[in-house]
C-alpha cells in the first residue's frame, strides 16, 4: 500500500516542457551567461546541487529586477518628498489629479516585468520538480523530534534524535531520490546548502530528486514548527564518492546490521501503518 500521491509535477510537466522551451528560449541562454557568476550573490549561496545553482541564478535575476525597480521607486519617493518640500504655509500647488500616459506606463511596465519573472520561475521550477529515474533512493521519515533514513534494497539504517544529528549518506554526482514522510506532525526537510526545503507531512508522500555535486557534510534541520524540540531537530547530509557510498551501504550487511534494521523497521511499520493505509487521494487530484 505504498502511497502514490505524488510525484508532484512529474507527468504533466514533461508534456508541457517542449512548448515552454520554445516560448522562452531566450532565458536558458541568459542563464548560461549568468552561470559565469558575474552578478553579485545578493546574500544567497550557489549551493552544492545542480538544482541549487539554477535556484541561485533565479535568485540573482529576481534580485537584479528588485534592485532596479526598488531602487528607482525608492529614489522617486525620496525625490518627491524632499524636492517638493513645502516652502510656505499658504502656497497651493497645481491640483493635477490624472496623468494618463504616466498611469498607463506604470501599469504596463510592471506587467512585462512580472511576465519575465514568471517565465524564469517556470524554467527553474520544472527542473526542480522533475523526477529523473535513479537507482539511489532514500526513505526519509521525520518524527518528533528526529529523523530516520533508510535505503530501499539494503539494510542501511540511520536514526537519531535532536542534537544526535543523524547523517544521511548519499553519493556525489548521482541523482538521489528522496521519499519524504512524517509519522506525526508536519516537519520541514531543509538543507541550506541545497537551496531547498520540503514539508514532511502525515498522510502525504513527498518525492524529490537532487544531485549533489561535491563531497562534504551539509547541515540540515527542521524548518516547520513541530513542538517542543523543534529548535533542536537537526540532521546532516554526508555526500561521499559513489564507491564510498557502496562500501557504506554494504557495511550494514552484517548479522548485527540486519537485526538492527529489522527491529527498527518492525517498530516503525507499526508506528506508521495508520498513515500508509489511508492513502491521501486528494493530493492526486491537485495535479
Amino acid at each position, binding site marked *: 500500500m505504498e502511497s502514490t500521491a505524488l510525484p*508532484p509535477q512529474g507527468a504533466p510537466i514533461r508534456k508541457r516542457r517542449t512548448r515552454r522551451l520554445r516560448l522562452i528560449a531566450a532565458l536558458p541562454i541568459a542563464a548560461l551567461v549568468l552561470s559565469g557568476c558575474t552578478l553579485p550573490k545578493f*546574500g544567497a*549561496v550557489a549551493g552544492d546541487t545542480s538544482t*541549487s545553482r539554477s*535556484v541561485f541564478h*533565479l535568485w540573482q535575476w*529576481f534580485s537584479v529586477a*528588485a534592485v532596479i525597480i*526598488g531602487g528607482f*521607486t*525608492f529614489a522617486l*519617493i525620496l525625490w518627491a*518628498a*524632499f524636492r*517638493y*518640500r*513645502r516652502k510656505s504655509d499658504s502656497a*497651493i*500647488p*497645481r*491640483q*493635477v*489629479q*490624472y*496623468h*494618463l500616459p504616466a498611469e498607463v506606463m*506604470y*501599469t504596463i511596465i510592471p506587467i512585462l516585468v*512580472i511576465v519575465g*519573472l*514568471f517565465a524564469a*520561475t517556470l524554467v527553474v*521550477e520544472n527542473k*526542480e520538480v522533475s523526477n529523473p529515474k535513479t537507482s539511489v533512493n532514500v526513505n526519509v521519515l521525520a518524527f518528533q523530534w528526529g529523523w530516520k533514513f533508510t535505503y530501499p534494497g539494503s539494510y542501511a539504517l540511520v536514526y537519531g534524535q535532536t542534537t544526535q544529528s543523524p547523517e544521511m549518506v548519499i553519493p556525489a554526482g548521482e541523482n538521489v531520490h528522496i521519499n519524504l514522510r512524517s509519522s506525526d506532525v508536519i516537519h*520541514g526537510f*531543509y538543507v*541550506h546548502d541545497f537551496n*531547498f*526545503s*520540503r514539508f514532511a*507531512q*502525515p*498522510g*502525504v508522500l513527498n*518525492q*524529490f530528486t537532487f544531485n549533489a555535486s561535491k563531497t562534504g557534510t551539509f547541515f540540515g534541520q*527542521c524548518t*516547520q*514548527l*513541530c513542538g*517542543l*524540540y*523543534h*529548535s533542536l531537530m537537526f540532521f546532516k547530509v554526508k555526500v561521499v564518492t559513489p564507491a564510498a557510498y557502496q562500501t557504506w551501504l554494504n557495511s550494514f550487511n552484517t548479522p548485527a546490521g540486519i537485526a538492527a534494521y529489522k527491529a527498527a523497521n518492525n517498530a516503525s511499520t507499526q508506528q506508521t501503518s*495508520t498513515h500508509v493505509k*489511508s492513502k*491521501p487521494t*486528494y*493530493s492526486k487530484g*491537485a495535479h
Partner: protein
Amino acid sequence: MTDVLNPTESHAHSEDHGHEEHHGPSGIIKWLTTTDHKVIGMSYTITAVVMLVIGGLFAEIIRAQLASPNGTLVSLAQYNQLFTMHGSVMIYLFAGPFAFGALANFVVPIQIGAPDMAFPRLNALSYWLYLTGCITMLSGFFTSGGAANFGWVAYAPLSNSINAPGAGADLWIGGLLLTGFSAIFTGVNLTATIFYLRAPGMTMFRMPIFTWNMLVTGILILLAFPVLTAGLIMLYADRHFGTHIFSVAGGGVPVLWQHIFWFWGHPEVYILALPFFGMVSEIIPVFSKKPMFGYKGMIFATLSIAALSLGVWAHHMFTTGVVLLPFFSAMSLMIAVPTGIKMFNWIGSMWRGEVWFSAAMLMSIGFVITFLIGGITGIYLASPPLDFFTHDTYFVVAHFHSVVMALVLGAMGGLYYWGPKMTGYLLNEAIGKAQFWFLFIGTQVLTFPQYLLGLRGMPRRMAVYPHDTQWQFLNQLSSVGAVLIGVSTILFVVNVMYSWKKYPAGDNPWDAQTLEWFTTSPPPHHNFYRLPKIRSERPTWDYNHPEHTSIVHGHTHDGTNA
C-alpha cells in the same frame, strides 16, 4: 453659510452639543451602554493600542532570548507560547481591529456624511465580542499548560488534542471565534453603512479612498472570515468531539487545515493592509496639498488586489508538495501590479506638491518605503523555487515584518492625523517626529539582519540556535532594532500623556480635504450640524478652496488646455 474654520463658531457648536449630551448617561455608564460609533471607535482604539503594547512586549522578550545562541531567559515551552501569542495578538487583536474597528469605525461614517453606522447596536456587540475575545485568548497564560503554543497558524496536527492538550489552545480557538464574529459583524456594518448611508451628493466615485478601502475590506471580511470560523469549529470538534477532519488516523486530511486557514489567511493580509493603504492615501495628499493622484486608478487597483487575494492562498503552501505551483505563482506575482500602481499613486500625490513633514506625513512616507521593501521581498516568495529555499526561514519572517511594521507606521500616521479629530487635541509634533525616527530606523534594523539570517539558513521559531552558525551577530543587531521600536512605543505613550488636552486642534488643523474635517473636533452627537455641497471626493477642500479644484494633466482649472 458661516466659515467652519472660525473657532468661535465651532466652540459655540461644541457647547450646544454639550447640552444635548446631558440627556444621555455620562461617565462609565456612557462608555458601557453607548451605540455611538465615535465612542465605540475610541474604545476600540484604546483596546487595540493596549494589545499592540502587549504583543510588543512579547516581541521584546523573544528578541532578548535570541540575542545569544543558548538564551535562557525563557524555556523552550515558554518560547513557543510567546511567539504564538505575539503573532496572534498582533494579527488578530491589534492590526485588524485597529484598522476596521478603531479608525474605520470612527472615520467612515463621518467621511460619507452619515450620522452613525448602519447598525449601531451590532457595532456595540462587535466591540464587546472583540474585548471578550482578547481576554479569552490572553487568559491562556493563566492556565496550567500555558497559552497556545502551535504558532499563530495552528497547523494540524500540531494543534490537535494530542500535541496541544492544554486549555490554552481551546482559549485561543475561543478567543479567535469571538474576535472573528466581531470582525464579521463589523464587515456587515461597514458594507451596509457605505452602501446605504452616504450623504446626498456622495456618489461612489466621490468617496474618499479610505472609505473605498474600508468598503472593499468589509466585503473581503464577509468572504474570508466565515471560512476561518468554520475551520476553527472543525478544529475544536477534532479536539473534543472525536471528529477526524484533520487527522490521518481517522481518514481525515491534515493539509485541509492549511487550505482553510490560508483561504482566510491571504485575504486577511489585505483585510489588514487595505485600511492602512487607505490611511496613508488620506494623509499623503493632505500634507502635499494635492488631490489623490490617479484616484480612479487607485480604486480599481484596490478592487483587483481584493479579487486576486482570493486566489493566491496556496503560495503559503508551496513546500507542502500538494498544490499546483504555476497557477498560484502567477496569481501571486500579479498582485504586484495593482500594488505598484498604488505606490506610484502615492508618489504622484506628492509630486510637485507642497510636502509638509508633519509627524503623520513622516509616518506615511515611512510606511511607503517600508512597504516597498516588504512588497519587493514578497515577489521573491511568489516564485516557488525561491520559496523552497526561503520558506519557514527568517527571510519570510523579515518579509512579513517589513509589511506589518509598515502597517504600524501607517497606524501611527492615522493616530497623529485623526487623533485630533477624535479627541479635539493635537499631539506634540516634536515627540511625534522623534517617535517616527525610532520606529522607522528600528524597523529597518530589525528586519535587514533577519533577511540575511534567512538567507544563511536560520529557520523561524527557534528558541535556541547552534553556536557555530555565526547567526549571533545578526540576531543581536535585530534585537537592537526591537529595542528602538520599543523606545518609539514609549515615546508615543509619553506623547499622549504630555500632550493631554494641551493643544486644541480646531475643526481642520491640517487643511484637510474630506468631510470629517468639516465638522467639529470631536464631532457632535450625530456628527454634523450642516454639510457642504459634495461635488468631488474632497468636499471640505472644495469649500475652503473653491478656486483650486482637481484637474487632469495638460488642462487648467477651467477645463481649457494648458
